[in-house]
């Protein structure tokens, strides 16, 4: 996994708010991979085209951990829209992830 892996899948909804998500991992551990897969899936399902995922590998950039007050791995941080929200864990529970991210169901 690269240091910062932006994944702007589609950028064709200019009016909609862009969700900026940061996923903190430490190396390619099974939990990290699983979290990334889960996140990608949820975003595709719920926020298609309106999200940006930045993956930060703390093994490479340990100094970035204190900025977002990360202490658990993996941690997903929603930087925008405000307020900042954090979800720790491999995001295997979609329901809770959605609650955590405060994503309204797109009908």
């Amino acid at each position, binding site marked *: 996994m690269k240091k910062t892996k932006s994944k702007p899948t589609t950028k064709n909804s200019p009016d909609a708010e862009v969700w900026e998500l940061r996923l903190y991992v430490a190396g390619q551990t099974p939990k990290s991979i699983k979290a990334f897969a889960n996140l990608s899936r949820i975003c595709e399902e719920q926020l298609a085209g309106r999200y940006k995922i930045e993956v930060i590998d703390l093994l490479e950039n340990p100094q970035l951990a204190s900025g977002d007050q990360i202490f658990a*791995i993996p941690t997903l941080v929603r930087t925008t829209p405000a307020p900042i929200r954090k*979800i720790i864990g491999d995001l*295997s529970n979609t329901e809770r992830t959605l609650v*955590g991210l405060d994503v309204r169901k797109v009908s």
Partner: protein
Amino acid sequence: MNLRQYLPSLDSQSHRSADFIAQWIITKIRFMTRARNNASISPGMLRKAPTGIQGLDEITGGGLPEGRPTLICGSAGCGKTLFATEFLVRGAVQFGEPGVFMSFEESGEELTTNVASLGFDLKDIVARKKLVLDQVRVERSEIEETGEYDLEALFIRLAYAIDSVGARRVVLDTLESLFAALPNEAILRAELRRLFGWLKDKGMTAIITAERGSGTLTRHGLEEYVSDCVILLDHRVTDLISTRRLRIVKYRGSTHGTNEYPFLIDESGISVLPITSLGLNHKVSSERVDTGIPGLNMMLGGEGFYRGSSILMSGTAGTGKSSLAAHLVDAACGRGERCIYFAFEESEQQIIRNMRSIGIDLGRWVHRRLLQFSASRPSAFGLEMHLVNMHRHIRQFEPSFVIVDPVTSLLTIGTKMEIQLTLTRLIDFLKTNQITSLFTSLTHGETNLELTEVGLSSLMDTWILLRDIETSRERNRGLYVLKSRGMAHSNQIREFRLTDKRAQLTDVYLGPAGGLLVGAARLAQEAREKAEKRARSIELERKRRDLERKRLALESQIAGLRSQFELETQEISQLIAQEETIDESFNDERTEMALLRKQDAPQSGRKRSANSRKVPGTDGRRSK
């Protein structure tokens, strides 16, 4: 099972004291043996990281276990964070071991502000790359938990911080916040276990603080993971006075003091008591110091106290303890030595004024910075605080003479036992530093004058007892030396008078009945004896004159007799001369007569002698 707790409370109290003493002695012995062992420390022994906290390194025999985590637990406000901070700051500044402070509660700024009042400049130490402050803020409301996770990020942050300054010491304050933030305790516990293992692997000397739980050392059972060294801090209030205490619950692989040690937090950080050595191996001086009262010097073998000795001056109220103490201060300052006067009853100004009335000006010594007063009410703070206060003053001022006036005032804030231990520590400290100390002690009642309230006598080298002597309806002051180690001291009771020109020890005055005469009785007796003496001398003079007169009379008599004798002698010699003349003329006459009668000339001696034999006959005839 400890049966002692079932004994009645009074009993258990005394048992506890006995236990306490026994424990204390054992600890002492341990320290002594360790001090000997330390010289030959084997490579396999547990290495220790000195904390630099006053007193703690003595209790732990060198510090916290190096490269291992130590758990500091205690209830809120007992000084855990400060303890941890001091450990890091002293490590970074004194022992060249940089540190990482990972706080789960306070931010770096808050921490910096909080410890600034204790004289730690964290900002500066951080700027010098000797310390990293990292705050892990855990907000339960911000966090949602889903699925599996671990605390690897914490490890990474810690590792990053450690590497950035090359840290040897780590503080985690207070890890337990994580329990509030993370609902999944199973993961947390597994991760904490891993964390402590990891810290050990990294060789970090770590302090983990934890809140005390009810009935357990920590609320979340952290002692389960950190088992090398556990220190319990406690903050207790007894009789309205709060005392902080520290106890080493366990220390794997090392002996340690097991008591509850009082400790303090003041402007120079934490001080754990006992502060100084626990041994009886201080150097002694055979130098003597003047007491300022010639009479007292004489009583103490003619030279005064030994330097570095401890002196107890006990007596009932108003016997002049403070006044006598002032003499000693004056004498010491007069020699150019520095003194500290710890007063528990009077203020500095009051003491100076009062001593002026007996002709001692202590104000000038204060002015010349030779004398320092430290006056405080005993109840102002706890016993330990007093002790540390004294220590600090002594360390700063470096006096050669210390006065505690009166030591019995401390009884209001502690039990006899506590005071005795406190004073033992103080005296040990003073003796180690060759400081002469004077303790005044107020005794009550006349019956047990020779019992000090706080059982101090065994700690004292010299004991001067001041007492009232009540005779002929007046009270006077008497002084005697009850004991004085290492010198031939006087065994007399001396009268001790406070005049406007210092104290005077008057000579021992024994009355006709053999009793000690003091005060007016002494004066009266003195006057009486003076009168008698005068009368006796007049009588003597009279007798002498009488004798002289007799001698003169006798001499004149002798002269009379002699002149008479001379007269007679003269008369007799005249008579003799006369007789001889007569004799001769008679002979001549006879010769002439013979010549006239034509008698034969006396040719032979025989004839002549026959002639001469006839002289008496002629004599008799002639006298007719």
